[in-house]
């Protein structure tokens, strides 16, 4: 690559999933979103890494593995991909709002489409942008899926009305360009990098939190979000949550008072039920 040598080594690390500096990662992914040459170089580096994998090829799996697989396939009915596409369901812990699984499924599907905080999703989106013209049929399937989601959102018989309203509230926050958005990363950095996206609407005091790659807190402990007031006042409790087994979670929290200006958010680990004052250390802080 000739155009952007400053990213040459970072791209090699990225191709192997060996980069653990959140700032470098954020900068590189932002660059990849706009630079076709570096995306092509990344693809080449991934192909190089596939060659590396070949050095390990040699031993064959035992015969029982073949039989195990073929038996599993024979026992499994074939269904269309669109009906099977898995969607990760997060576990919610909020003081005031608990979603039924169907709502969570819909929200996380929307969330993954709109924000893509999961790094694999970001990579897929980069690829999808390149392949859009060739994947019209996939887009058609997605459009049909979106129509189904919309139909469910607007069909009281398919979902409880209250849940649909909650879903619409969250969708409104996700798409509100005026809402304050803060990305939090773990301190110290770990891999895979835990990420939390917060969206805050001071006008009504609502905070939406979406967590990804967050390890399960110790037994009887929860994560607690803190709003850091812009006037330098004490951190204010802004809801507790626990991620699911996959490290994902979502929480909606209303501040008791609307109109509080925030300069940021932070996350600590507290006892179940939450705390009124943060207990050090801060485990998630705004990405620099």
């Amino acid at each position: 690559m000739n155009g952007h040598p400053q990213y040459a080594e970072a791209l090699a690390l990225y191709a192997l999933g060996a980069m653990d500096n959140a700032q470098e990662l954020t900068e590189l992914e932002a660059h990849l979103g706009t630079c076709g040459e570096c995306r092509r170089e990344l693809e080449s580096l991934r192909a190089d890494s596939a060659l590396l994998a070949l050095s390990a090829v040699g031993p064959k799996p035992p015969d029982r593995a073949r039989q195990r697989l073929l038996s599993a396939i024979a026992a499994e009915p074939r269904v269309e991909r669109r009906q099977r596409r898995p969607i990760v369901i997060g576990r919610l812990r909020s003081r005031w709002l608990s979603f039924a699984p169907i709502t969570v499924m819909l929200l996380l599907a929307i969330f993954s489409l709109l924000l893509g905080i999961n790094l694999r999703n970001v990579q897929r989106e980069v690829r999808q942008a390149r392949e859009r013209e060739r994947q019209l049929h996939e887009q058609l399937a997605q459009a049909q899926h979106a129509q189904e989601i919309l139909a469910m959102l607007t069909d009281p018989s398919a979902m409880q009305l209250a849940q649909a309203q909650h879903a619409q509230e969250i969708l409104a926050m996700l798409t509100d360009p005026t809402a304050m958005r803060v990305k939090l990363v773990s301190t110290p950095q770990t891999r895979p990098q835990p990420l939390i996206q917060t969206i805050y609407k001071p006008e009504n005091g609502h905070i939406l939190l979406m967590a990804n790659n967050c390890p399960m807190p110790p037994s009887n402990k929860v994560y607690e979000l803190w709003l850091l007031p812009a006037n330098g006042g004490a951190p204010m409790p802004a809801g507790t949550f626990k991620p699911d087994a996959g490290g994902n979670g979502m929480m909606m929290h209303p501040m008791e008072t609307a109109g509080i200006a925030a300069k940021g958010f932070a996350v600590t680990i507290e006892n179940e039920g939450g705390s009124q004052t943060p207990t050090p250390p801060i485990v998630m802080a705004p990405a620099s």
Partner: protein
Amino acid sequence: MSGSQAADQKDDAALIARMRAGEQSAMADLYDRYSGVVYGVALRVLASTTAAEDVVQEIFLQLWRNPQAFDAERGRLAPWLAVIARNRAIDHLRKRPMESDIDELPISTGVDLESDSAQKLAIEKVRGVLAQLPPDQRKALEMAYFEGMTHTEIAGKTGEPLGTIKTRIRTGLLALRKAFA
């Protein structure tokens, strides 16, 4: 692309098409052709035959459930499966939940891997390139790829500066590319 490579790629596409049609014999054929690639990579990462078998089972079962995940126009099955095997094995090693889908990025390499003889030639060539790398460079590359370590972890373990580790990893990958150019 040579004529035989094009034919092999066509074979891959035909296998996938048969799988999409629900032919179980296509899965058996595909397994016979590529299970060694997936198992070898998983075993190298996990150093456990049982765990490696689990990765093989998981990947082929997911491909059966979702054959559309592989796009024959964007790459070849062997390198694609090798990369998925590596990533799933690292997930297993790090006790991360394995991805529930195998819709990974396409891997485009012009290396012929479909036939047994072509695979053996390519494997020997890769091993030859790795053997010629300086030991520190090869080690950094293998720690990142087969042990799933980050460059910071490698620097911490080897006592080398971060910048040195970055350079070694990139240079090692480029050496592989050059050998197959």
